[in-house]
């Protein structure tokens, strides 16, 4: 009796989860099917789900763009720089906050956390004003530099280092390590799961980032993929969405692949930040 009740609950649970998953997947499925439609069919109401006629024209439009490879490369440069810098810098800073005693540490960490409370959009204008003075407008560095390190990444890494036993670090100190050597030989290699999560988050964030690049980058050859796509199909009176949708589907591909391969790291990251303070 008891078992069958649990079985029923499990079935109900799975039905609910499946329905929610389908709802969440809907826009995604829509963008895949729509990227094979003509724009005329794609904007019909009520929406149609089967491409008729089936066309690959939106993809041809995208791939045929002169600047598509440039934008792709720009996006790769930005994402790669940010991911590399974040994993190195945030893991070092996180280690310092977790395991190195220095005066003012708690104060500094609180300040850092406070910056997380501020929505990124609030700092967009001041950042723009500042960058326009130092020549970082219309420059990929203007996107990369603010992304080099972030409070949330430092927080994630700090949590992970705190979850490691103190004895390990003490043992390393007795065994002849300076803090830098402890970091290099013990902390960093052991932080791989957290670094994986961090790298994926940062990739997703920087790859999909739109508003920052839109504000900072001015010339066509500097655009990232999301900015470029909008620019290319933004007509005077309307936006031609089907190539944008096709482009977004293309642009999302690495994200989806990464998610499928590394989703256990992503879950690890969630557990870390959700865990103890």
């Amino acid at each position, binding site marked *: 009796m008891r078992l069958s009740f649990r079985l029923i609950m499990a079935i109900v649970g799975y039905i609910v989860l499946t329905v929610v998953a389908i709802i969440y997947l809907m826009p995604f499925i829509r963008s895949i099917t729509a990227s094979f439609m003509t724009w005329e069919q794609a904007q019909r109401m009520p929406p149609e789900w089967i491409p008729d006629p089936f066309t690959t024209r939106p993809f041809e439009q995208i791939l045929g763009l002169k600047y598509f490879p440039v934008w792709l490369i720009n996006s790769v440069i930005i994402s790669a720089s940010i991911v590399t810098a974040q994993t190195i810098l945030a893991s070092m800073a996180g280690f310092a906050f977790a395991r190195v005693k220095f005066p003012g540490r708690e104060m500094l960490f609180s300040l850092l956390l406070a910056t997380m409370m501020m929505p990124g959009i609030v700092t967009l204008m001041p950042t723009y004003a500042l960058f326009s003075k130092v020549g970082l407008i219309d420059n990929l560095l203007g996107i990369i530099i603010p992304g080099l390190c972030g409070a949330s990444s430092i927080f994630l890494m700090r949590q992970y280092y705190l979850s490691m036993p103190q004895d390990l670090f*003490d043992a390393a100190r007795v065994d*002849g390590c300076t803090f830098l050597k402890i970091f290099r030989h013990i902390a960093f290699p052991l932080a791989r799961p957290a670094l994986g999560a961090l790298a994926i988050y940062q990739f997703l964030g920087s790859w999909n980032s739109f508003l920052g690049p839109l504000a900072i980058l001015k010339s066509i050859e500097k655009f990232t993929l999301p900015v470029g796509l909008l620019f290319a199909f933004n007509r005077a009176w309307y936006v031609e969405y089907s190539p944008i949708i096709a482009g977004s589907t293309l642009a999302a591909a690495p994200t989806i692949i990464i998610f499928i391969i590394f989703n256990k790291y992503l879950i690890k990251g969630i557990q870390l930040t959700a865990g103890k303070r």
Partner: protein
Amino acid sequence: MARVMLQGVTKRFGDTIAVNNVDLQVADGEFMVLLGPSGCGKSTTMRLIAGLEDPDEGEIYIGNRLVNEIEPSKRNIAMVFQSYALYPHMTVYKNIAFPLKMRGVPKDEIDRKVKEAADMLNIIHLLKRMPRQLSGGEMQRVALARAIVREPMVFLLDEPLSNLDAKLRVKMRFELRKLLHDELKVTTVYVTHDQVEALTMADRIAVMKKGRVLQVDVADGLFNRPRDIFVAGFIGSPPMNFIEGVVNEHDGALVIDAKGLELPMPTHFQEALKSYLNSEITVGVRPQDIKVFQGKGARGILGYVLGVERLGTESYLHIISGDCTIVIRVDPESKFKEGERIWWVPRETRLHFFDTKTGAVIAKT
């Protein structure tokens, strides 16, 4: 090889004083055990010696060198942690080699020393394994190998046996002492809360309580001549019986009035206790230092049997006498009934007297 010396060492964590003005001398090659209940400051004392904590006051010497300002890695010590603290991402070989590698020892020398240490601890066959593939006892050996491979001047061991099962603990207790003390002859400071470990392994034991060292002595000294009521109660199992009372004069001789019973004072203590007339003292007597008489013609102090604990080779009789419950070791062959009247007599020479207020022992004059 080196001595270790602590002079007036104090360590505070916020408002709590973890280590309070500790003086301690560990002779060259000596096996010193820091013994005390949890939170007594014994681990902190060891971490101060290691350099993992900095003292707020006092001086720490290793050999003839003042090490207060010296990094843990440069103090020429090795430490074994309760959790073993093996590096989980390195093989056993790399774990043992790590302290040598950090010191820039040449590769072939590292290899020779690692194998030597592994051989000494019978773990050659484990060198390629990862720590997670080892049993508790094996991890323990690897941690020890990592400590001895450096040939340090001082070994620091923080409750190294407490994560092992009881049987293995007894075995390792014996092996550890043999290895560190008899073979390597290295100065060792060993932290434990287990008095049996302390009594069986140590040359001398420092008993700690609330950040203070109460007594540093050989096992026999702590057991037979405790200088403090805490030491008296902490060492020995089952613990010493304590009877609190007031010193009174009765027919020209001093007696102790304890709740509902009167203890006559041994003649050799009369003089020392005179100054305690009318003040409170505590009498201590171990379970094995009391004789029990049954039946007709018995003499001594009256008590009633509460029950008997039988442990095979010995039995412990629990009695109530006046308002005091007292534990007495008795012959396992003897028979007692619950509620039976018995008479007990402590061995006069084995009585301990403590000032109830300060806990300090009252010495014979």
